[in-house]
């Protein structure tokens, strides 16, 4: 289905999944805590079949 197969059959599907979701999140800080809803969790969603090293840059701004 895809022409970009040089990095494996799972690579182009992984790019599509990433673009359809997102690579960044902004969560408010309220009363000193992350203002997550009761049932909200933050997840890293890996789309490649093999294990990978992933890096997240966390920038916190406020007072």
């Amino acid at each position, binding site marked *: 289905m895809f022409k970009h197969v040089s990095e494996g059959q799972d690579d182009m599907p992984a790019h599509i999944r990433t673009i359809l979701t997102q*690579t960044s999140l902004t969560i408010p800080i309220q009363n000193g*805590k992350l203002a997550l809803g009761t049932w909200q969790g*933050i*997840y*890293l969603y890996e789309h490649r079949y093999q294990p990978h090293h992933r890096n*997240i840059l966390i920038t916190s701004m*406020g007072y």
Partner: protein
Amino acid sequence: MDLRMLSHFSNMHYMDRYMPNTIKITQANLSINTMGRGTQDITAEIISAVTITKLQAGLCYLFLQHTSASLILCENYDSQVRRDL
């Protein structure tokens, strides 16, 4: 998982006392080894990165520096949600 603060406020006490409500910006790096396709809960690590900053109000901006993985907010009660994903 490896959480590393990239910056911190050496003069936090001074700033809090003499310049309250000054907006501060801090950055941390979270390195994760994934186990292949699927989700990994990083909520606790992000919470601790924010707690270390001692910020009371503001925003936490998470940026994943990759093109074949995502960051998502998802239900954390029934793990079947993530298996279905």
